[in-house]
């Protein structure tokens, strides 16, 4: 497979509280033969706060980065954080559909942005550009104890005109990627409910209530792990889980992993490689049963054979026990 190359806009969160998302994504992309090119001297996209100030100003903070990417070899940028992605795409769409908006934005910039960049979420690149077959091909380990729900958060697929990816009400990309790894994924009704986004700091009680709903639903469907693709979702669900327990009287203890960490586990990377120790709610108990796929397959075959035996044994009537033993040896 020829190596695919993307510019990589990690965004601020992945340098800080979401370091493990960055680390695991890089490892997974390497395994999948994708080259991530660093964007020289990228700056913050401005996120939600800039959008409370002014549309042109917000677009300018984002477009400074688009202008840098435009000068790179590749004009496709992959963005792991849905918030950064939306901001970059909104700026791009605004500037390519409205000439006067483009001029206003460029007037705030040193280097103008001409509108040549395509931005895709990292999940989209993995799901659409790499594809499920290639994802499954690289699997080295089975994770038999994981029961995952995929939680997409509010803006990874919304609004559809901006996200241009998957379904805005019932997205399936993450479910399919994790299933392709041979891991059990459960149906989940709250895939796109909002977790409280950036309000964790100024409106903590509100966020704790919203998060409580999302965690409860995961438990109700029988999940023991939540997969996410957003640093803010991860933070609200994992870092604030104990806050939720305290304020809402619940007793959640469910690990919240980046989907790339789950992929990394299936690709044989160690929990240390994937910085699993950065999770507040640990996932060690779920990972302990991880075994190489070959061994797992043999184990399953043996189990299936053993399950058939009693029926056989009854048919044979004579010396059933000894035959069974002989077979086992």
């Amino acid at each position, binding site marked *: 497979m020829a190596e695919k190359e993307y510019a990589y806009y990690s965004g601020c969160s992945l340098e800080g*509280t979401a370091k493990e998302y960055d680390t695991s994504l890089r490892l997974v992309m390497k395994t999948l033969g994708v080259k991530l090119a660093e964007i020289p001297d990228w700056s913050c996209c401005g996120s939600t706060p800039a959008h409370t100030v002014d549309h042109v100003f917000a677009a300018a903070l984002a477009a400074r980065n688009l202008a840098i990417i435009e000068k790179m070899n590749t004009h496709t940028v992959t963005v792991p954080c849905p918030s950064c992605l939306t901001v970059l795409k909104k700026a791009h769409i605004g500037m390519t559909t409205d000439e006067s908006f483009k001029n206003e934005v460029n007037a705030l910039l040193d280097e103008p942005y001409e509108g040549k960049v395509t931005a895709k979420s990292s999940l989209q690149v993995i799901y659409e550009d790499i594809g499920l077959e290639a994802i499954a091909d690289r699997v080295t380990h089975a994770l038999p104890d994981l029961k995952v729900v995929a939680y997409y958060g509010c803006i990874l697929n919304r609004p*559809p005109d901006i996200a241009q990816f998957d379904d805005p009400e019932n997205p399936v990309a993450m479910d399919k990627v994790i299933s392709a790894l041979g891991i059990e994924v459960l149906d989940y009704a709250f895939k796109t409910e909002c977790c409280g986004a950036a309000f964790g700091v100024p409106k903590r009680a509100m966020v704790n209530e919203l998060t409580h709903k999302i965690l409860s639903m995961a438990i109700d469907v029988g999940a023991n792990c939540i997969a996410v693709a957003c640093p803010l979702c991860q933070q609200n669900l994992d870092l604030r889980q104990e806050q939720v327990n305290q304020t809402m009287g619940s007793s959640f203890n469910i690990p919240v992993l980046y989907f790339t960490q789950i992929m990394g586990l299936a690709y044989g990377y160690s929990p240390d490689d994937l910085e699993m120790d950065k999770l507040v709610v640990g996932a060690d108990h779920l990972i302990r049963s991880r075994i190489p796929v070959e061994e797992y397959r043999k184990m399953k075959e043996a189990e299936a054979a053993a399950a058939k035996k009693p029926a056989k044994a009854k048919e044979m009537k004579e010396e059933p026990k000894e035959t069974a033993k002989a077979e086992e040896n």
Partner: protein
Amino acid sequence: MDTINLSNKIDWEFIEQVKEESGQNPSLCYQCGNCTAGCPYTNYFDYPVSMVMRLLQAGQKDTILNSKAIWLCATCETCTTRCPCEIDVAHIMDTLRIIARREGKVSEKDIKLFYDSFLDSVKQFGRIYEVGTLLMYNLRSGHFLADADLGPKVLTRGKIHFFPTKIKGSDKVAQIFERFQKKAKRHG
């Protein structure tokens, strides 16, 4: 939720302003309530989002700009995704918040302070410095211990930098702020 006082006369200029700045047409809204039904924050809003739309049609500038709803909206895009009239409702909320900020009407001071602390970090370093942003917010808001319980969790996991990374082009980013402020002054 209050009873809405519609005795204020219709501010046509305000309606035009929102139309112009958002590129959306609020008069398309037929009050189906779909947006409110899906809004995760509606329990916390003083006026549900469909009512903000109605108030907008009725040109009730002050009620809207003083509402908590426009600040508590998280731009989750649910309303935009589900509006049968294809109004970008979230973008209207965005626009209303921008106008409120411009006119110095901020019903949710803490949220604005949080956003400002965030933007200060961008201006200064070019990127977000999470510790600095939180400290700045705590100082300004007077909530000195906001999220202090999370501190040890974050610290022991090496999830944050103690020092900001300043990008090479941080002055370029600061210039975006300055040019915008100059422009805002000229127009304001």
